[in-house]
């Protein structure tokens, strides 16, 4: 293999580039990203960077040594992949590669019909964060649509900036999909405890605007909530549209086997875009992108599946000066037990149980205890690399 092209220059792409070198590939590596920025880390975009306490440089994923060993093409979009020839059609020309890593992640879902309304934001990219930060001025009333991780983090950051914040969640319990109903509702209570209004079962019917600028959020019930800034945290859509006609199987992401290899042995996928295994599971979390990059690269270099992806299910989120940590894979009807502290405490540890097994571990504000419990209760995740 002489040239490996990595499409998508964010976490999974940057890690894939580092892993290629770490795993001994000494050919040409081309990292293609449509954003104009050098690869940066997203988690701080809803936290310290949005709050204005983390600098742009602190988000950099690659250092000078990494960059020197790569060819980075920024502001360049991959438009097509011809599987027969391995040729990539880029917005600024063509590129021939004998190995391809797909790491295009996804794009934030916007509230329908609001793209042109000023004051309405999504949060996925650095530019999104800069645009939102501009508008978080004293006195602004912020309404966040979606009580998932990103919505909750933005709410917490806005509250920290002293703004008036309301979170709207369509489901009865926010974050129940990831944490289950019990721990989801405990985390949801953090909003109220910190002076943020959370309204569950609230469906958005539309927005009100004056002169092209948002003034409020209209609920299905007819109620209108005044708003100067609206943030939609309603999920993302995998960036696979450009793979139409590539012959690759697409379905809620790029389909791969359990080694992250697509139907072509020289094309692998990693990160938010990869839908792996027979069930086509996709994870949208940081550690997943890092760990998948390592496995995908190993299998690409070997030309066959030498490592299967074993998800650790590790996710963290920072909300209201606290840290939530989860490892494993809880299901909604798992039994929850408290290993330390309880649901009303500022800090606790809990485990999820199913059929007599511990399937996941959760910690609020107790990283040390979480680390210990996770190692006791769950098999240690495979080290990266």
């Amino acid at each position: 293999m002489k040239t490996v092209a990595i499409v998508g220059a964010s976490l999974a792409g940057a890690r894939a580039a580092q892993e290629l070198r770490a795993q001994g590939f000494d050919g040409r590596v081309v990292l293609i990203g449509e954003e104009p920025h050098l690869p940066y880390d997203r988690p701080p975009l809803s936290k310290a960077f949005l709050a204005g306490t983390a600098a742009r440089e602190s988000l950099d994923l690659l250092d000078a040594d990494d960059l020197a060993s790569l060819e980075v093409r920024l502001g360049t979009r991959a438009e097509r992949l011809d599987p027969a020839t391995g040729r990539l059609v880029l917005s600024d020309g063509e590129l021939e590669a004998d190995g391809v890593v797909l790491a295009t992640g996804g794009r934030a879902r916007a509230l329908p019909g609001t793209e042109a309304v000023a004051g309405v934001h999504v949060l996925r990219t650095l530019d999104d964060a800069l645009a939102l930060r501009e508008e978080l001025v004293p006195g602004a009333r912020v309404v966040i649509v979606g009580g998932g991780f990103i919505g909750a983090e933005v709410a917490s950051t806005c509250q920290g900036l002293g703004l008036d914040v309301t979170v709207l969640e369509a489901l009865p319990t926010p974050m129940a999909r990831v944490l289950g109903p019990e721990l989801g509702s405990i985390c949801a209570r953090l909003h109220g405890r910190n002076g943020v209004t959370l309204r569950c079962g609230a469906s958005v019917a539309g927005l009100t605007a004056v002169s092209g600028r948002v003034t409020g959020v209209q609920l299905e019930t007819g109620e209108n909530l005044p708003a100067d800034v609206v943030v939609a945290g309603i999920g993302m859509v995998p960036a696979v549209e450009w793979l139409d006609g590539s012959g690759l199987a697409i379905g809620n992401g790029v389909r791969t086997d359990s080694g992250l290899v697509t139907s072509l042995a020289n094309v692998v996928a990693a990160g938010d875009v990869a839908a792996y295994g027979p069930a086509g599971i996709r994870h949208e979390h940081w550690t997943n992108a890092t760990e998948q990059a390592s496995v995908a690269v190993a299998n690409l270099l070997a030309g066959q599946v030498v490592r299967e992806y074993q998800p650790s299910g590790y996710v963290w989120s920072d909300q209201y000066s606290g840290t939530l940590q989860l490892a494993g894979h809880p299901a909604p009807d798992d039994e929850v037990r408290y290993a330390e502290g309880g649901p009303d405490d500022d800090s606790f540890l809990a485990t999820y149980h199913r059929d007599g097994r511990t399937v996941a571990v959760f910690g609020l504000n107790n990283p040390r205890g979480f680390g210990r419990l996770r190692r006791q209760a769950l098999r240690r995740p495979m080290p990266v690399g």
Partner: protein
Amino acid sequence: MLRACTVDELPPGESVRIAGPEPIAVFNADGELYAIGDTCTHQDASLAGGWLEGCFVECPLHAALFDLRTGMPSCLPAKQPVRTYQVQVEEGVIYVLADAAEDAA
């Protein structure tokens, strides 16, 4: 010199964090005491909350490993070392030798 805690308060496998402008984490790794900058150089997790494994500490947030003897990270995502500090035990109390400036602060 900064006071960490008493020897009794830091059994093997445990750590303490000394707050301050530059927080410091002190570890008891199987009987050896080490002190390093508490803030992970990747983002800003507190390493005192990390997992001790031999003379390495694993960052609780993204699992970068730091060598307590040198402060060097031995795996991604961290790339920059954390500072190391000398540790001294006097009459059952653990002290960390920090800069004069820091000491005065």
